[in-house]
């Protein structure tokens, strides 16, 4: 039976104001069990205050074969980084 449990991806938010981050995956029979398993496996040491789970099969991933087309064109568009602005002294921590 355990071999038939689907895999779930687990996302944990470590504190308010931050976003959920992928922390790993686990097996569970359904969403409810996935939340509880995530709580037991991934928040034992106070890692989080909120859990998302999503069945792995529902995630669509980009194909490594498309990496060149998807990501490389961004490499020479340095003007997209806000590094050319002169910041006024009053603005700190940008």
């Amino acid at each position, binding site marked *: *039976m*355990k071999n038939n*449990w689907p895999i779930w991806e687990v996302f944990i938010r470590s504190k308010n104001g931050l976003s959920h981050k992928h922390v790993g995956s*686990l*097996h*569970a*029979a359904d969403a*409810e*069990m996935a939340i*509880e*398993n995530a709580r*037991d*496996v991934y928040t*034992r040491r106070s890692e989080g205050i909120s859990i998302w789970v999503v069945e792995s099969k529902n995630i669509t991933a980009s194909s490594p074969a498309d990496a060149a087309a998807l990501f490389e064109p961004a490499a020479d568009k340095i003007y997209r980084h806000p590094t050319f602005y002169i910041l006024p002294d009053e603005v700190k921590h940008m």
Partner: protein
Amino acid sequence: MQSSLSPNHALFEFALFMGDNGLICGHRLSEWTGHGPALEQDIAITNISLDLIGQATSWLNLAGEVEGKGRSADDLAYFRSDRQYRNFLLTEQPNGDWAMTIVRQFLFDCFHFEMLQALLNSQDERVVAIAAKSIKEVVYHLRYNSEWMIRLGDGTVESHRRMQRALKEQWRFLGELYEDQELDQVLAESGISVLPSSLKQAAFSRMRGVLKEATLKEPAAVTDFKGSGRKGIHSEHLGHLLAVMQSVQRAYPGQEW
């Protein structure tokens, strides 16, 4: 009701009772470590085990403090014999299969939750403090075990059959949980605790709700079964459990690492 028990001695006995339930349940669940039906459940059941052993430490420390003879939680855990243990018969029953363990823990959780809820209003602030810390953990235990009750009860033909068998097996031990003893009268009168019988209705209504959802049949009440773990009259299983749990301290008293 006149009683020869002083409130202080009653509190000592009560703290042992609460501590022993947690310790014995916790030890039983620790036996699943490395043997859980799936890695995730192995970790989950071990977490619950650690919760219960942690709670037992608090209760047994309180018992030692109330007794005033300098005994620590470890002394009480490792150097008492089965006749001096106050846990319910239910808690010492062997793990059996997953169904047997889940049913045992669920029946205990229903009692445990109601008792801790009542203890939040205790006149003794040490009792309130332990209850307040424990109840958050026990809410989760109850949720976890309720879900397994429903999942397996309302699962396959085989899982249903095993759950019904486990329920019949463990139901025999339920009487003791809600039976008032002389000790409880003293505790209730001094506002330390409440009569276990006062918890019965809420606990049973919760149990019946889960049984219904799990499509499990409530077994007939067993009334001619009157062993009493609380009085130290245990089943044959506790001695074996203690032999394992206490072996290191019995062989090397005071040993630490």
